[in-house]
């Protein structure tokens, strides 16, 4: 595979840094993800030389992945295309996209063009495959092109969620691990790690290998609260002794679902006063539940 991976080796200095968006906007790149998960990037790059590369650089540790940028069609030297095969793993995080027009040349931050992500919308996943890898190209808030990546040994994908009087009822699907009859979902309090509450994870129906349901009882979380605002992260323990699997929603075309996939709140009275309980997706698209004090009515 014509892909080079390296860690911490910085590319030559760039005209604009990863986050910045100055007047000199970089070349616009069109991304297409196909059913197999390959990510193709197409960019018009006049004057590019042989040896041009697409560079992905992870925020935080500057891990790099380089893929050859080659003429999209013979004789069409300015239109270049790079394919990042599904088999190339991107570590979880945000990867900024650049073009390296020639060996040794400075990198150009890429701007988002048309991202054809229809194959991501209702994707079919084999629950037996581990790790679970997800890559979604997206426009950053500074209008640059980056790729949001998740890479987890196993993942519990939320399919439906209902806020009921009994709590947050979830139907989810386990990928990359086997669900046992003794599976449980654990709510872990971020503010007070000693606080853990468990609820059984039951198979969604007879013959369901990987689909399960659970209910997070709001009353229990409310009773256990440690401050005025607690956050409980949800983890699936698929079998006794197996590694915990974060519950979330990663398998579509939405890189940032916090403000799009929202749920109503439940409010209930406790001996310490009225509280509001609400499930939500974190900045990493994982499912958590907040418990916060409400002013007395």
């Amino acid at each position, binding site marked *: 595979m014509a892909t080079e991976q390296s860690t911490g080796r910085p590319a030559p200095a760039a005209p604009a840094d990863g986050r910045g968006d100055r*007047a000199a906007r970089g070349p616009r790149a069109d991304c297409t993800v196909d059913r197999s998960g390959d990510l193709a990037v197409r960019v018009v790059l006049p004057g590019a030389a042989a040896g041009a590369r697409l560079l992905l650089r992870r925020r935080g540790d500057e891990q790099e992945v380089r893929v050859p940028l080659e003429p999209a069609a013979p004789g069409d030297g300015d239109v270049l295309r790079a394919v990042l095969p599904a088999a190339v793993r991107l570590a979880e995080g945000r990867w900024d996209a650049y073009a390296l027009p020639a060996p040794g040349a400075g990198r150009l931050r890429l701007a988002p063009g048309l991202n054809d992500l*229809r194959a991501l*919308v209702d994707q079919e996943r084999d629950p037996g495959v581990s790790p679970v890898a997800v890559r979604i190209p997206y426009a950053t808030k500074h209008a640059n092109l980056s790729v949001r990546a998740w890479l987890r040994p196993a993942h519990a994908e939320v399919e439906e969620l209902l806020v009921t009087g009994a709590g947050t009822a979830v139907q989810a699907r386990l990928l990359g691990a086997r669900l046992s009859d003794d599976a449980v979902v654990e709510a872990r309090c971020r503010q007070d790690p000693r606080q853990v509450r468990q609820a059984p994870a039951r198979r969604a129906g007879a013959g369901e290998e990987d689909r399960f349901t659970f209910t997070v009882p709001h009353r229990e979380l409310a009773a256990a609260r440690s401050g005025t605002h607690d956050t409980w992260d949800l983890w699936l323990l698929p079998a006794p002794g197996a590694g915990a699997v974060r519950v979330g929603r990663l398998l579509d075309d939405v890189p940032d679902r916090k403000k799009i996939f929202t749920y*109503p709140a439940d409010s209930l009275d406790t001996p310490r006063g009225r509280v509001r309980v609400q499930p939500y997706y974190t900045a990493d698209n994982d499912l958590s539940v907040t418990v916060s004090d409400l002013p007395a009515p």
Partner: protein
Amino acid sequence: MHISFLIHNGYGIGGTIRTTFTLARTLAEHHDVEIVSVFRHRDTPVFDLGPGVRLRHLVDMRKGTPGYEGDDPAHRRPSRVFPVDDNRYPQYSALTDERIGRFLKSLDSDVVVGTRPGLNVHIALQCPSRVVRVAQEHLTLDVHPPMLNLRLRSLYPRMDALTTVTEADAEAYRRRMRLPGVRIEAVPNGVPEPGIAPGDGTGRYVVAAGRLAPVKRYDMLVTAFGKVVRERPDWKLRIYGGGEQKERLRSLIDRSGLYNHVYLMGPAAPLEAEWVKGSIAAVTSSLESFGMTIVEAMRCGLPVVSTACPHGPREIIRDGVDGRLVPPGDADAMASALLELINDDVLRRRMGRAALSSSARFDPGEIAARYEDLFDDLVRGHRGAGGVLRSLGRETRGRLLSGAYTVTDTARRVKRSIA
């Protein structure tokens, strides 16, 4: 031909700006085209102008730059030309009167096109008769305040042509404005072919896009989709756009228990990439002066279920052929039309293909050609033997209708024709 477009702000985002840029870009393939923007508040325009179109501004509003003119004392004095009832009036001033007037006076184009009522008034009053004057209406006659219509009625007789985006609106102008000698023509907006393969109708998403404003009636769409979900819980609705109604819609979705099926996606650009993820587009507006999103969705291969609201949808969609039209405000009718397409894969895909081919008539090339024919006719009529007499006749009519302004304009014109 040398064609000048006069626009409020070519550096902003909006339907008129986008459609003007598309038209200018296409006309520039054969003509000398410029866009003159009254205001400029940022360095580069948002929409693509292509290589052929020149863009310049008359008043620089870039705060913190040496050219900033917002503090000019003349900019604090109210405009005397721009009509008070055009809702952009507060932004216009003695400074814009002077700048627009100077620009129009020195204009050596063959054709000048105004892109909103206030600017059409400027053209009627300040543009010399040697230039062919075209007033574009991107909204509709019905939505103008009555006082604005009175003013337009007195001044539009000086224009050579008035274009609307629908036949229905053109008919309203012909019937209610009575503009003798002014050519009134409907030319729809152009929508480019999307740079992405069309949808194939296999997905289970209904897509809507637009400002979250009351006129779009997304509340009705959410209610209708609630009925759809009862029968087809495997289908979902995505609404793209931002706006004042967001919280209301959010709480409607939550109260109706539709939060697993209806998603407020926020603004998205480019929208083509979002249309093709859906298999049906939905429009619930109570008013669409044109219906740009309908054409966009059709160009992406989606059949559109739309209310038959005034004016655009009925002139874009052929009911039962390339989409569905339902009575405005009727959630039940909207739900049944959606279900009809959801429950019939063959019908849905056939309508999608029909939408794809019929929407090609809105290709910018087709639309620009219609403008080209119109401009050509007008320029030839203007230069031809009868031109002077005809325009003089129009002046006389204009004077009868609009009083003092016409007198000075005619005086100027007579002077010029003597010289």
